[in-house]
């Protein structure tokens, strides 16, 4: 992903269209070095202000809050040291939360990428009505987490839901899609995979669109067809997009909230209580207002997201072939 690479190398030339100009001409493209233009800070001020107030300050305050208690009015009170963190590591239900979060991430990211990869590659074949198929497969993208979740809530409803009624028609016992602790997390994952498919397919299609036709043509002339073309040309050239989806998908999964709030409310028996849902539950649900304990969990979330992103960039990105 270009994002962080560029964070350390400003004004890289590689994304500019290649020119025949020499080095000196290129260097002119940058504004001259030295002290800032007076106007520059004026143009940067709005972004700086919003990020200062709503990203950087709250980051610091979350850390501070995680060492504070809460008074009876629900306002932060005196410092309690590492109490919240110690409580987290003694709390068996917090280990369940971490386990749920890991399992949910696994159950959503891998299947979504695999299914969308297969479908995007099939769309790339010579097919009838390519636009109709593409639009059909991408349509779930129109669903927000709320609209997608209420539809799946209707499908999963234990008594009136379509899935159990279908099972009933075939003489099967109803399944506790969102009421059985063994199944609920799988059901929430299923709904999530469906909601993510459209976005994933769009990213992969966009990636396939950048594969130069000459490369494909050359491979065809060399006798590559069908599966071999897919395996040796399309998939390797798609690696940057697949890596991007892995990173974005993992971060999204770790941050999932709406589908859990709407489908299960973290239950039954805490079986769908993930890290972000637990933060909500501790800080905001039922006037709990336990901001300190919730902030400690928010810090854990921040660490988990940072570490996993760093691992993905450090370990996997090295193996990604950039064309």
């Amino acid at each position, binding site marked *: *992903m*270009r*994002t962080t690479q560029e964070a350390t190398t*400003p004004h890289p030339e590689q*994304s*500019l269209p290649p020119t025949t100009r020499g080095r000196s001409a290129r260097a*002119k*493209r940058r*504004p001259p070095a030295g*002290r*800032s*233009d007076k*106007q*520059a800070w004026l*143009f*940067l001020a*709005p*972004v700086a202000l*919003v*990020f200062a107030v*709503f*990203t950087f300050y*709250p*980051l610091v305050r*979350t850390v501070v809050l995680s060492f504070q208690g809460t008074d009876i009015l629900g306002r932060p009170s005196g410092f309690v040291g590492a109490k919240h963190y110690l409580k987290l590591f003694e709390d068996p239900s917090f280990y369940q939360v971490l386990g749920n979060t890991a399992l949910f991430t696994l159950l959503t990211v891998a299947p979504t990428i695999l299914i969308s990869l297969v479908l995007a590659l*099939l*769309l790339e074949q010579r097919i009838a009505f390519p636009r109709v*198929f593409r*639009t059909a*497969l991408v*349509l*779930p*993208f129109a669903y*927000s*987490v709320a*609209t997608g979740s*209420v*539809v*799946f809530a*209707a499908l999963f409803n234990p008594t009136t839901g*379509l899935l159990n*009624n279908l099972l*009933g028609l075939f003489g099967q016992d109803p399944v506790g899609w969102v009421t059985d602790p063994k199944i609920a997390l799988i059901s929430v994952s299923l709904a999530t995979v*469906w909601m993510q498919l459209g976005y994933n397919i769009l990213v992969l*299609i966009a990636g396939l669109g*950048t594969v130069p036709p000459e490369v494909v043509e050359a491979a065809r002339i060399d006798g590559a067809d*069908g599966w071999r073309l897919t395996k040796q040309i399309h998939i390797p050239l798609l690696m940057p997009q697949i890596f*991007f989806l892995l990173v974005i998908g993992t971060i999204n999964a770790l941050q999932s*909230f*709406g589908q859990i*709030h709407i489908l299960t409310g973290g239950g039954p028996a805490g079986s769908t209580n993930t890290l*972000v849902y637990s*933060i909500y539950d501790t800080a*905001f649900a039922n006037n709990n207002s336990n901001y300190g304990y919730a*902030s400690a969990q*928010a*810090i854990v*979330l921040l660490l988990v*997201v*940072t570490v996993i992103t760093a691992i993905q960039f450090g370990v996997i990105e090295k193996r990604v072939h950039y064309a």
Partner: protein
Amino acid sequence: MRNRNLTSRILVHAVLVVAALIILFPVYYTVIGSFMSAVNFINFAEKPWPSPSGTLQNYVDATSVIPLVRQYGNSLLVAFLVMAGQILTSVCAAFALVFLRVRFAPLVFALIMGTMMVPSEATIIPNFLTISDLGLMNSITGLVLPFIAAGFGVFLMRQAFKAFPYELYEAARMDGCSNPRFLLTILIPLTKPAIGALAIWSFLGAWNMYFWPLLVTQSPEMQTIQIGISQLNSAENFNGALIMAGAVLAMIPTFALVIFGQRYIVRGLTAGSGK
């Protein structure tokens, strides 16, 4: 060889048709269900189409169970304000980073990109307290304010501006063109596609928001449509068909985008996922 080709073509189409049917089923269930009576919807398994007297009643009822029109207006207002805010702040910041001398520019850019790495849930408690302290609970301002700048927007606009010849800026400056005038009359008109992509992505993000509006709005009149339909879902007299009608209404802008505007969605994607 020929036979093998034919078999594989049939196989490709068969898999695509089956996949499309499975993926489209919840969409069918949403749209067709929204025209069903409550009883009809519960018995969807036996009769998956609406009675001939198919009903628009759900759409009428949805507007009376929740203040749907008002919530729709709230959602539109929030989405437009977030969109306008992000375009304005991103264009300005990216302009400064690409065309002006900024001391510590790499650090400034790194900090802006860094905000994309911070999960918003990790900062949501202080932000909730801030909005509450500012007396902005239950207001459009409270819904919009934290989202009028985004790292992704600055990144997207910076990419577009970097492809713009710096010599043209120098020439304009030499002719006495001020920075704001250069922005408005030359740069923005020539980078419209990127601004369009940012407009669509920021609108989508704000329209689909769930966690934040759930926290900062309490009265139904101030809630967004996304929260409104989830309230239908948790209502005591749960009516699936009514919820489907609400969901269809909430998806009009996004459906339109997928069907007519896929090109623009993809433009934003390729900026983010590019090699």
